[in-house]
């Protein structure tokens, strides 16, 4: 852990050397996601509810997904770079060092510009706070924090699996975007508006539905459209941990059969 902080800290200092460029990137990260939020608000001008959820409630779900994804992006940038390292043979260097490869990959890149998305997610949550009346209890607060952490872990695991798949395919694939960018987009809306098989995929395979929708529905006191057991919202951390375990397993398998591309 100390080593990660050391390596990531060095990266961070490097990143912030170019002030103007850095400011522009943060600003663009903020606007990119901000216009999405704006688009949602514009649609809610015309329509009053989305699958039985009001604008404030959807903003809450949206903010929850956004903040989690931003955290995952912030710490998982190195995983997105892993495919390049593998393709260019740079990964060999990682393997020769006496530090766990995953730790090195994670610390290889950290992108503070992602705070733009984070800021936007917090803005959405603030708006949701104004537009809804949530009956906060300590349990709900804990669930809220747990949901954000769990969702971030799920996204990080998607990055991890995406990187691990490169051990076999060498090429990275745009397919991963379906579960990352597509995943946040999907998780920003109430799950009942999607078709059954989409719901199935995002509840039981990439469990974003369990880490975002269910905790949010519980906090907002919305009915459960799928009739799952009442303790389902509290399963988020467990589900995220299981999914992470699966990701680590795939990463380990990939690492074991990794063959250098040479050069």
């Amino acid at each position, binding site marked *: 852990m100390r080593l990660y902080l050391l390596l990531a800290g060095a990266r961070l200092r490097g990143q912030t050397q170019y002030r103007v460029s850095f400011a*522009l*990137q943060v600003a663009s990260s903020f606007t990119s996601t901000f216009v999405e939020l704006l688009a949602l608000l514009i649609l809610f001008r015309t329509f009053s509810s989305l699958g039985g959820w009001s604008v404030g409630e959807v903003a809450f779900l949206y903010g929850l997904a956004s903040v989690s994804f931003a955290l995952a992006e912030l710490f998982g940038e190195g995983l997105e770079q892993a495919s390049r390292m593998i393709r260019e043979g740079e990964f060999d260097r990682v393997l020769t060092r006496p530090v766990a490869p995953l730790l090195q990959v994670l610390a290889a890149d950290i992108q503070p510009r992602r705070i733009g998305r984070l800021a936007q997610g917090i803005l959405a949550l603030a708006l949701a706070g104004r537009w809804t009346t949530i009956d906060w209890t300590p349990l709900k607060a804990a669930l809220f924090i747990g949901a954000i952490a769990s969702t971030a872990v799920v996204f990080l695991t998607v990055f991890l699996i995406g990187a691990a798949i490169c051990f076999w395919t060498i090429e990275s694939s745009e397919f991963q975007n379906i579960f990352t960018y597509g995943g946040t987009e999907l998780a920003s809306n109430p799950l009942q508006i999607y078709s059954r098989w989409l719901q199935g995929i995002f509840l039981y395979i990439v469990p974003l539905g369990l880490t975002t929708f269910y905790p949010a529905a519980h906090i907002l006191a919305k009915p459960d459209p799928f009739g799952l057991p009442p303790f389902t919202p509290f399963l988020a951390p467990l589900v995220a941990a299981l999914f992470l375990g699966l990701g680590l397993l795939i990463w380990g398998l990939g690492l074991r059969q990794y063959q250098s591309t040479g050069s």
Partner: protein
Amino acid sequence: MRVYLEAARMSYRCYRTYGAATLAGLATNGFFGLLRSSVFIAFYEGRPIAEGYTLDDALTYVWLTQGMIMPLFLWGWLEIADTIRSGSIASDLAKPLDYFGFWLGRDLGRAAYHILYRWLPTILIGLIFFGIGLPGSALAWLAFALSFLLAIVLSFCLRFMINVVGFWTTDVRGIMGMVLLFVNFLTGFLVPLEFFPPALRAIVTELPFAAMISIPNKIFLEQAQGRDLLLLLGRQLFWVVVFVGAAWLLLRSATRKLVVQGG
């Protein structure tokens, strides 16, 4: 003229070699199309028409715009900026042909590829799974084709100008990201401009960005006939003339201060 056609043909063939990437990209466009469709279907529940759009219109809009992403290359393009960085721009400028025309030719070749392999399949997916509407007459198709072409040229000019800013600064990436994000919103890609609040809408429809997505979309949906249709096309043509002129002027002042990097 032949040399520009040749540039277009080469660039078309260059893109055709990436079959797997095309498939992954299509899957991503399709997935987002599915999500956006689900949102509109849920919003329209129990409501036949909103802001002049029926649900079918909204779905057509979703799949048309999803298909237009790649032909218009909305997610950014830095090929020229890269040649400025590497210094190879010097040899491009030394070629005995018009620099702007050369890149326009290349971009149209690329767009032809993306229309055939990204736009057309995306429209087909929308047609098969969501029964979207298509223009009903040959004339409507012709008008749309013309409008689409003008939109592509306009988008090229915008991207060209952002790249040329690279003559002054080596950090075009941030600017490109920033501009294209606004573009996403102002073109009516995220939400049709018809849904905007009236005051905002009055401004946005006057901007050149509307000519990139909103106008072709209106024409595809056959929302304008006769004189109105001609006015829309005229508006697009006007912006194309302005943008080509601006791109030309910018290029001229840029090449005057060219400092070639590398060597």
